[in-house]
């Protein structure tokens, strides 16, 4: 039976989510009917402008922000780039010190690496074995020339929720802007930029049932930031280019729904998550949970299995119609295992055998039960192929441990 004939199950919601019918419906008029340029003063422009400002309110409402503090971008990656580079390069200053973590998404760490080429310095803070950043370490890392602190709200791989409120407080005491990448958090937890002491916050619509290629950066009033894309001066000069009106409308609607449905969708996902976290280590010998069991995103379950490699696991699940992902090296194009799993202190070999299951509001208990039913068999099948076992674990230098 081919995968297309199977009932497919999607457990990869941290990669992307389905656009909700309500969202698609809200976007539809902005392709064929209201297709104007929001900068035009005529009626075509005005209807596009009105839709954009409506969406800005919806996003602001989700974050407890002011609409004037919301800048639309092309997605999470651009929001992160704008926050990091835009603050660092403010007024053309080309030096200073940034504090971030070893578990950030590449959309934060790569701009930091890029800034280093121009003379900026970056401190990457370590994390605990469950992936937590210690606010005390943030405080100790601060220097006289620190210009930005960027710590993600929740991790995209292992779901660990960072103490952003405390970190934001420390940043504010020292007068340093605080950015958080909340791309994975929206729709999975309550996000309040005022309560959490946030100056800049990145989000991306496709992670919470909006369309791809649209996102936003919250920029608290008074934050010193430069645009990184220059042009016609849209988005109050912070992000030039004719606005993606259907995308912005879709983002607005998705934000409205995320807020409206937060409580019951979170309760539902948390239930399913906890069921997996409880049962997988019971059903599969030598299976472990990565990250903290409770202070994690309600939709994230992340496991590690001794003696096998994650890509095989994903392919076997896929053959049964189940879509999940892995932090293992081999499936991501690079051969190195995930920097997040290594930052937890896992060996290469351990990091290899990982499985990420990320739930969405549409997943059902029945689907989780199917996963729990097929997973033990798949793991033991792969373990039969593996040279390693409890009796004969991988020795030093036999593979993973000799990397680099």
């Amino acid at each position: 039976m081919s995968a297309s004939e199977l009932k497919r199950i999607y457990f990869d919601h941290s990669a992307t989510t389905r656009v909700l019918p309500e969202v698609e419906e809200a976007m539809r008029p902005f392709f064929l009917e209201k297709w104007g340029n929001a900068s035009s003063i005529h009626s075509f422009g005005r209807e596009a402008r009105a839709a954009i400002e409506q969406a800005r309110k919806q996003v602001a409402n989700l974050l407890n922000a002011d609409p004037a503090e919301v800048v639309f971008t092309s997605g999470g990656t651009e929001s992160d780039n704008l926050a990091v580079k835009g603050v660092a390069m403010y007024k053309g200053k080309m030096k200073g010190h940034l504090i971030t973590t070893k578990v950030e998404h590449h959309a934060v760490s790569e701009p930091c690496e890029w800034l280093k080429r121009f003379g900026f310095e970056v401190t990457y803070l370590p994390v605990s074995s469950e992936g937590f950043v210690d606010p005390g370490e943030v405080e100790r890392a601060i220097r006289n020339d620190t210009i930005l602190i960027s710590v993600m709200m929740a991790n995209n791989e292992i779901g660990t929720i960072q103490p952003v409120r405390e970190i934001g407080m420390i940043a504010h005491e020292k007068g340093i802007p605080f950015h958080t990448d909340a791309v994975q958090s929206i729709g999975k937890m309550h996000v309040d930029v005022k309560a959490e002491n946030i100056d800049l916050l990145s989000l991306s619509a496709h992670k919470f049932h909006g369309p791809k290629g649209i996102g936003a950066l919250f920029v608290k009033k008074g934050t010193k930031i430069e645009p990184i894309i220059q042009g016609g001066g849209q988005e109050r000069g912070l992000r030039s280019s004719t606005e993606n009106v259907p995308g912005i409308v879709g983002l607005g609607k998705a934000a409205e729904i995320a807020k409206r449905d937060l409580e019951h969708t979170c309760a539902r996902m948390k239930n399913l998550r906890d069921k997996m976290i409880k049962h997988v280590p019971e059903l599969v010998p030598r299976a472990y949970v990565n990250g903290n069991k409770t202070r994690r995103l309600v939709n994230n379950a992340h496991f590690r299995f001794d003696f096998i490699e994650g890509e095989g696991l994903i392919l076997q699940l896929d053959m049964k119609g189940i879509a999940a992902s892995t932090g293992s090296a081999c499936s991501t194009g690079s051969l190195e295992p995930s920097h997040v799993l290594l930052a937890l202190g896992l060996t290469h070999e351990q990091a290899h055998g990982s499985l990420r299951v990320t739930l969405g509001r549409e997943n059902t208990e029945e689907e989780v039960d199917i996963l729990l039913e097929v997973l033990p068999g798949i793991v033991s099948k792969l373990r039969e192929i593996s040279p390693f076992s409890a009796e004969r674990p991988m020795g030093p230098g036999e593979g993973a441990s000799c990397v680099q």
Partner: protein
Amino acid sequence: MYSDKVMEHFANPRNVGEIVDADGIGKVGNPQCGDVMWLYIKVKDNIITDIKFKTFGCGAAIATSSMITELARGKTIEEAKKISRSDVADQLGGLPAVKMHCSNLAADALKEAIKDYEAKQAAKGKPA
């Protein structure tokens, strides 16, 4: 991203296992990705009569392990020595660029197993 042939070998790998009284064993690891392959051969009258593998690695590593056992079984030692890295990938209908090293792992494991066999023969004083 994988060809049907790769997926077929991954889903139904041939010749998984160990040979307890193997005549040659090849153990190789890829220092880049950390994958490991062990290959066992049984040789009679200069012909590989049995071959088995165990692999810790990605889907391509499992498929190439399976493929190399099929390519080498029944071959003379001289013929088996000629099996190249690209033969394995070609027989699988190609591999994604980032996965080419996985077929190297399989070819290298076979070479190591043959080397081990020949060394053992030499130690026994018999011509290899």
